[in-house]
């Protein structure tokens, strides 16, 4: 266990560098705050902090940035659970069950479960990064355009399981998202589509749409409710779930962490995809899938373990190949380069001491995140006791400021408010918002990679069935779409075989 020795000496080096530990704590705290605020994502936090790290020693600077990364991925869940305001795209999945739990007065346990699962998923991913990096590095390279396309199709099929009460309404919302996703620069030929001449629309303003659909819509909805407070159980109650409850979720957490790590390794796929996939698989393997979407703790655990599992996976690809898989690691690559560490195959060979000190520090960051997270939950939970006359304006201001911060663009604020109004009516008429977000993430990915795959194969469709990973992912996607239908059909047959019973389909009529 060569790695173990290196890790131990890494811990020893780290212990003698209290400044680095302090900065890691600062990073994690900042990250949680940034993640919790809508619009401010981990990517932005890392980019803003980057110039401050120029003057620091490599370990301190990089640990602070890692802290922001980890904290930012986790922080989104807090507001998602308490207020249905996902601070990050990944937290939109957490909000599915998290907010339902808050409605039931179980906000405390939901937050505790999210924190614990984030910690477990993240820590597991760092351990994989430490011990299995060289083995897994090659996996990222297997992923070409056909595989990414298949992953995106699989992602789209998840719409079926996050649709809530009505699959039809979920599909309508999903297709709405796909339609919105066609606005912008054509990914292959570079021509603007449906932009109406606005350069601001060349990229789909994805985060403003998400903030509008969730946070602004929720704020608009509270305006029509005459109650002074949100009316959810003000006391948080228990924060840590009791052991038997959490033990039942450990399988889900392990599976979700694994999925998160794998998706993190894949270039171009990040925490948002991981959270949705983990949620979908948790539901698939659950004995009580009907509880999902109505406040299932395991759903929260799955999303958070998946999202944070992504962190180690994304770092693995960036450190071993020198290629960032997503926007956060792209900025982190810059940070490493500035510190004189060139990420890539030589990094682990040439700078093993330093890298393993960093790994030790990353584990410390996750422990810090757990402690800070759990300690601050009671404080954060007070939000629920705030009178609405204060809370609603604050939420709307945060929506606007957060949206503006993304591109410094007033246009985006308009997009966000329009999405907010749309989201309000979607809620009123019971159309789920998550499929829109999911389609906005997956739609462009599916389109670009399908066309890129065709370009790579000179126009041949063979890639659909000759590449193993593609075949597996596409098959899983088809299964995800069809299984609920098959199940319903079988239930329907069972029902109709019972003498005297009318078919459920007829009852609907």
């Amino acid at each position, binding site marked *: 266990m060569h790695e173990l020795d290196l890790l131990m000496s890494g811990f020893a080096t780290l212990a003698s560098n209290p400044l680095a530990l302090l900065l890691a704590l600062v990073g994690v705290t900042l990250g949680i705050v940034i993640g919790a605020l809508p619009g401010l994502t981990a*990517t*932005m936090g*890392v*980019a*803003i902090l*980057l*110039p401050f790290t120029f003057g620091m020693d490599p370990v301190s600077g990089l640990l602070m940035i890692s802290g922001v990364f980890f904290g930012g991925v986790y922080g989104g869940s807090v507001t998602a659970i308490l207020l249905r305001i996902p601070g990050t795209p990944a937290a939109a999945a957490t909000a599915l069950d998290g907010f339902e739990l808050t409605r039931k007065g179980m906000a405390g346990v939901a937050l505790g479960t999210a924190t614990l699962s984030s910690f477990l998923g993240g820590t597991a991913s760092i351990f994989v990064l430490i011990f299995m990096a060289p083995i897994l590095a090659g996996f*990222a*390279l*297997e*992923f*070409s*355009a056909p595989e990414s396309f298949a992953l995106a199709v699989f992602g789209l099929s998840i719409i079926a399981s996050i649709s809530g009460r009505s699959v039809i309404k979920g599909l309508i919302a999903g297709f709405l998202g796909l339609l919105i996703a066609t606005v912008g*620069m054509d*990914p*292959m*030929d*570079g*021509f*603007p589509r449906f932009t109406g001449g606005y*350069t*601001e629309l*060349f*990229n789909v303003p994805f985060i403003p749409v998400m903030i509008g659909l969730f946070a602004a819509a929720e704020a608009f909805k509270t305006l029509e409710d005459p109650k002074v407070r949100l009316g959810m159980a003000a006391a948080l109650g228990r924060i840590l779930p009791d052991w038997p409850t959490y033990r039942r979720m450990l399988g889900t957490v392990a599976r979700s962490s694994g999925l998160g790590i794998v998706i993190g390794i894949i*270039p*171009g796929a990040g925490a948002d995809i991981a959270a949705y996939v983990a949620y979908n698989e948790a539901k698939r393997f659950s004995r009580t899938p009907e509880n999902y979407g109505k406040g299932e703790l395991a759903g929260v655990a799955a999303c958070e373990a998946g999202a944070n599992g992504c962190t180690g996976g994304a770092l693995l690809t960036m450190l071993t*190949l*020198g*290629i*960032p898989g997503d*926007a956060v690691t*792209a*900025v982190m690559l*810059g940070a490493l*380069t*500035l510190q*004189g560490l*060139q*990420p*890539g*195959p*030589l990094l682990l060979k040439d700078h093993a001491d330093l890298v393993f000190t960093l790994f030790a520090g990353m584990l410390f960051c996750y422990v810090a995140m757990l402690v800070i997270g759990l300690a601050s939950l009671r404080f954060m939970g007070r939000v629920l006791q705030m009178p609405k006359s204060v809370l609603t304006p604050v939420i709307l201001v945060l929506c606007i400021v957060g949206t503006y911060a993304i*591109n*410094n*663009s007033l246009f985006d604020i308009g997009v966000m408010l329009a999405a907010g109004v749309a989201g309000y009516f979607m809620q009123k008429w019971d159309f789920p918002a998550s499929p829109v977000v999911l389609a906005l993430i997956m739609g462009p990915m599916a389109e*670009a990679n399908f066309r*890129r795959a065709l*370009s*790579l194969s*000179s126009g041949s469709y063979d890639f659909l069935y000759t590449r193993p990973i593609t075949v597996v992912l596409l098959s899983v996607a088809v299964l995800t779409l069809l299984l609920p239908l098959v199940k319903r059909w079988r239930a329907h047959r069972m029902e109709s075989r019972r003498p005297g019973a009318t078919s459920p389909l007829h009852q609907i009529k």
Partner: protein
Amino acid sequence: MKVTNRLSRRALTVGLSAGVLIAGAATLPGAAFAADYPTKPIELIVPYAAGGGTDLVARAFADAAKKHLPQPIGVVNKTGGGGAVGLTEIMAARPDGYKIGMGTVEITLLPHMGVARFTVDDFTPIARLNAEPSAITVKADSPWKTFEEFLDYAKANPGKVRIGNSGTGAIWHLAAEALADKTGTSFNHVPFDGANPAVTSLLGGHIEAVSVSPAEVSSQLAAGQLRMLAIMADQRQKAFPDVPTLKEKGIDLTVATWRGIVVPKKTPAAVVETLRTASKAAAEDQSFRDQLAKMNLTWAYADGPEFGQVMQKDNAFFKGMMTKLGMAK
């Protein structure tokens, strides 16, 4: 009547002279304003996201310029539209020198695609800070050891060699198209969402080559996973002295991306002068050069007029190129 007439004439004279005085008073502080420039912080618009290459150059420059300007420069990222949003903002800024911009090679690309409201003539160049040439890079275990072998194979198998670029109409796509045009070969150009995914795809063996800059493949080159066959620059790069230029191979082609400070066209000459002097001092500051070197970026300072020539030359070249490819609108 006579009296009133005279009176009115006097009133007119008085009024006129007062008007002249007021106008003079108004222009005087205006002139002094330009001479005093800058009296408040300067905003530097970066048309790309924080943390990217353009942003890093801008921040390093803003840092170095602190010593050479009485007021600080603040970096503001205005992203979107492949740079079009930020560049439009720079073009449309009030030409008083308080909103300047980081101009990139896209100034000479986007206008021809019909996606921009500006042209190259809407900007006054202040200083080029950085430039990166295009390079042809293949996998280390590929059969092509030299650029000639690569080109011969491409000629023998037209359309078979897949070259990854950072997006259709982006600089590295045009570099590969220009190479095909100059050598009479045809490649299969595969656009990716930026240079990094293209390099990943090359490492995985899904494409045959990339046309991105040396800096974007340097760590894989160092690790022996990739091989750079030729660069599209006038001279060999200091960091890669063994890699020949296309010119050495008898192909007269240089394509490079660049980044530099630009201001809106109508900015007063005095302000432009102040910025040029300060930019020269900041760019030649050792701290700025060190910072660029740390980020694997090539220092390529050029003064305003010289920078302007590069812009005009590139603009004409890419316009011709895109018209030929049918991309121009």
